[in-house]
């Protein structure tokens, strides 16, 4: 048992981080919530002190020139597209990343370090540059089209660029390491002799994967899914470059409200809804992991 004073001293170690987050993250978030609840000023900025929920109403309804309110799904569609694209990205990074993580975990320790180093190499290049490279690859008559047509697989350009497909490819590419790393970390601690035990007890490869490996690295899988899903929801650069103006995501919408539309309260409201979605995803993780922890007690 540790005494109360020891506990206090230990908490002291965390104080710099706690202060930093409270002041520089909690503070701005409170300001954001406040901004979302006041009236907009015509040239951007807000009128402090005049409270209204207009920003949240605007999310669901639009007002026409006659002052009548009608239900509007435009913004919800952008949110749904973001959720759908992020969900797809989670799935795609999992399908590609899980075998990769398993392969790395099964190498000898020195080789593992090298492979993890290779995995982190793309981070050395700016995200903007990497997405711009995809723009060149995916554009009409770009490298992808040329290769496919050269191999007689397709006869005309695919026109992938500026579609949801292009965004999905870009997001999957950008966030793949964030799936591989936590899954690998869990995999490294996983006792692979359990797989032999499963084989010995009559489980074939698929059964061993489903009943032994997945539950064994469940924490890593959930962490990887969240690490991909959350930043994906708010991603900005990839949809701007690869999605063009047709395929907006939440991040682009928020940015537009603060700049072109000069509607700060609405931008803040959109950001707050995004924050609620992230919190819900984190809560889901806690629920998923709690079942396991309870049984492990």
């Amino acid at each position: 048992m540790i005494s109360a004073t020891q506990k206090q001293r230990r908490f002291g170690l965390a104080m710099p981080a706690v202060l930093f987050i409270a002041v520089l993250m909690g503070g701005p978030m409170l300001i954001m919530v406040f901004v979302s609840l006041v009236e907009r000023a015509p040239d951007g900025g807000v009128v402090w002190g005049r409270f209204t929920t207009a920003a949240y109403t605007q999310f669901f309804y639009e007002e026409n020139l006659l002052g009548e309110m009608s239900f509007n799904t435009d913004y919800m569609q952008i949110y749904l597209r973001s959720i759908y694209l992020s969900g797809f990205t989670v799935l795609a990074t999992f399908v590609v990343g899980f075998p990769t993580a398993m392969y790395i975990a099964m190498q000898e320790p020195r080789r593992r370090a090298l492979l993890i180093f290779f995995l982190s190499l793309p981070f050395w290049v700016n995200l903007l540059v990497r997405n711009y490279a995809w723009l060149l690859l995916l554009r009409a008559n770009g490298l992808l089209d040329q290769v496919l047509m050269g191999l007689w697989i397709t006869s005309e350009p695919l026109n992938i660029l500026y579609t949801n497909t292009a965004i999905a490819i870009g997001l999957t590419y950008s966030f793949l390491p964030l799936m591989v790393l936590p899954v690998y970390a869990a995999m490294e601690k996983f006792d692979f002799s359990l797989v032999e035990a499963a084989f010995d007890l009559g489980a074939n490869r698929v059964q061993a994967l489903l009943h032994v490996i997945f539950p064994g690295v469940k924490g890593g899988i959930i962490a990887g899914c969240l690490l991909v899903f959350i930043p994906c929801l708010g991603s900005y650069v990839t949809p701007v470059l690869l999605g063009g103006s047709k395929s907006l995501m939440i991040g682009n919408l928020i940015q537009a409200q603060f700049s072109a539309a000069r509607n700060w309260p609405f931008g803040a409201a959109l950001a707050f809804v995004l924050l609620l979605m992230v919190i819900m995803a984190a809560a889901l993780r806690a629920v998923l992991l709690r079942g396991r922890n309870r049984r492990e007690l």
Partner: protein
Amino acid sequence: MAIAMQLLGLDFNLSFLSADMISHQYAGTDVKVLNNLTLPIHENEFFTLLGPSGCGKTTMLRVLAGFEVPTSGRVLLDGQDIVKIPPWKRPVNTVFQNYALFPHLSILRNVTFGLRMRGLSRAERHKAANEALALVRLEDFVNRMPSDLSGGQQQRVALARALACKPRLLLLDEPLSALDYKLRKEMQGELKRIQRETGTTFVFVTHDQEEALAMSDRIAVMRQGQLEQVGPPSDIYDRPATSFVAGFIGDSNLLPAVPGADGRLHLAGGVDLGVAGQQPAQVMIRPEALKISPDGPLSGRVADLVYSGAATRFSVTLEDGSGTVQIQQASASTSGISVGDHVSVAFDPKQLWVLAA
């Protein structure tokens, strides 16, 4: 040859299980872990693979389980070659050295795992699991998690999990090595009882010769991937085939002997051993077959003695130059002897065992 054996009804395949000329070399190495190993194993027997670490006994077990496909050779189960059959299709189960219980599953779900993989109904699974848990006396633990259990209890669960599948062959890879001495002794008896009650063929791997002698119906002594000797424990102990077996199983004194003009073997100093022999040989005498007594034909000086309660163990350097022998004797009959004393040593010719030199 094979046909002749078949006609005589001596077909090799009549064995329940036989590993036939197994050789194995791990990829990227040039050492043969197993070298032309042939093991016939009978149904319902407690068969032990015994040898020092690195002798290939665990590899042999992995070949039987299906985790390794040997470089050459066959494994015949009921006359059928199973070398190419994957582990999940073999009627063989293993108790692993580290138990390998699934940490995310309750004891019940661990024990029913093999039955679930085979698609048995819930009722059948629970019945088999309860039987298996009753066999290892852990009926009340069904809802616990493996981490709640002690090492000895986890061991029993691993055993129940394997037995619930009703295997034709149960493989045990040094299952007792992680337990403390008292628990190990207890589990030895338990394993023996369970083997008798279930009538399952056990193949047990150990480096502990005492454990092997206590539990086995037959023992195969292995060394560097080759078989040294197979036989019942008493054969292995009393009539070792090679000096390696003599040295590895129990303590033994190996003394060089030469044939004399009378057709009997003599020690270097001329002492008549009382056994016939025409060739130079090594003579094995167990420490308990030697005795310090005033009328013994051998003489020597006590170099060391270790008192351990009921028995005392002496190291006596023989004066004829044959070397130092170990003697184990009831403490009551040796009181008063101390290091440096001059003693006479007697032996019973019937307890000598002659090995080729």
